[in-house]
């Protein structure tokens, strides 16, 4: 009995610090900047997402690429937009860094993902179209309201000059 107690005490003494230490090493992924819904917080319950996020993303990628279905709920882009938003100083964690939302757990679990060898690991510009489109005018619908281009004006000017000579 005495021996048993001693062994137990020894085991507790040995194991306890390890448990405490392991606890502090658990990954702490950055919190999302906003909630998808008040009820589930994320697009699904947190438990569900921890377990099955890969299936949702995998399903969505084929829907999007092959069919053109671009709903936001299970889109990888939206995961990144919400969970890996830039900090207040504008810094964004990159994949492979422990601060990156995905990398935090994947480093811990030693699971290598290759999503970000093609996809962007930081929030995409919501205005994805390049700057030209800021005018946002489709020429074909605005024929009448388009101003004459400088080329045309030059041509007009040279035309009238020739006419005078």
């Amino acid at each position, binding site marked *: 009995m005495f021996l048993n107690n001693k062994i137990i005490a020894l085991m507790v003494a040995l194991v306890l610090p390890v448990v405490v230490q392991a606890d502090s090493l658990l990954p702490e992924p950055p919190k999302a900047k906003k909630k998808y819904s008040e009820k589930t917080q994320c697009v699904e319950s947190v438990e569900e997402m921890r377990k099955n996020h890969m299936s949702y993303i995998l399903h969505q990628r084929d829907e999007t690429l092959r069919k053109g279905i*671009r709903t936001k709920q299970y889109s990888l882009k939206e995961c990144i937009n919400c969970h890996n938003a830039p900090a207040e100083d504008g810094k964004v964690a990159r994949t492979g860094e422990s601060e990156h939302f995905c990398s935090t757990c994947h480093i811990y679990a030693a699971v290598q993902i290759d999503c970000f060898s093609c996809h962007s690991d930081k929030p995409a510009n919501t205005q*994805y179209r390049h700057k030209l489109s800021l005018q946002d005018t489709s020429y*074909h619908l605005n024929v009448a309201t388009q101003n004459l281009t400088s080329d045309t004006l030059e041509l007009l000017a040279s035309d009238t000059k020739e006419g005078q000579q």
Partner: protein
Amino acid sequence: MNHNKVDQYRRQFLAQATAVAGVSLASGVILNTVHAKPADQAASSKNRWGILIDANKCGTGCNKCVSACHEEHGVPTLGKPATDAQWIRKVKLTDKQTGHVQSIPMMCQHCANPPCVDVCPTNASMKRADGVVLVDKHACIGCRYCMMACPYNARSFVHEKTTEQKYPRGKGTVESCTLCVRRIDDPNGPYDPACVEACNAEGHRAMWFGDLKDPNSEISGRLKQYGGEQIRSDLGLNTGIRYQNLT
């Protein structure tokens, strides 16, 4: 001087008046807006997207479509012409007999019967229901059979690691023009692809984007009225990119 100005104003007025007449006359054609596809709906075979390119209007030496495309998709120029990716390029055509020079943009022709899809061993090379030919990089193993099969030399292999991509693209996969599929799928769209937009903004207005299956679309109207050519039409690929005034 005054006389010149009056003349210019008169011309400008006339040009605009004609344009207005054009719009109202062809209101059924031009103002027939294409309905945007809701985000949760799949691309449909009721549409077939294409571009019509007028070779006479395309500016020799103008490279705006190329730079707009590569800027939009984050395709870098690394100064390595042998391996740099090219989603679109300008091709110069010279008639040896007459010396007449034309310049046209060349990209994925979005064939109805795409050879790249036929040869792909992993089904990565694919055609959407609305005729857009894409590479599913999730399935692409980088074998480059599609690059060999494409008669238009439209595809590129990504040789370098990508870090600042604006559009999913990665080392070891093949890529090509996507007809700006994000713009087509945009819930407020479909918007003109980047190349077409750049061409219009530059004032050349050599490109029209639209639905080839919609008889009321501007592109269909123009093709019906003036006709259009497919490059290498002998191959029977039924391309979505058509050209006019090629000599």
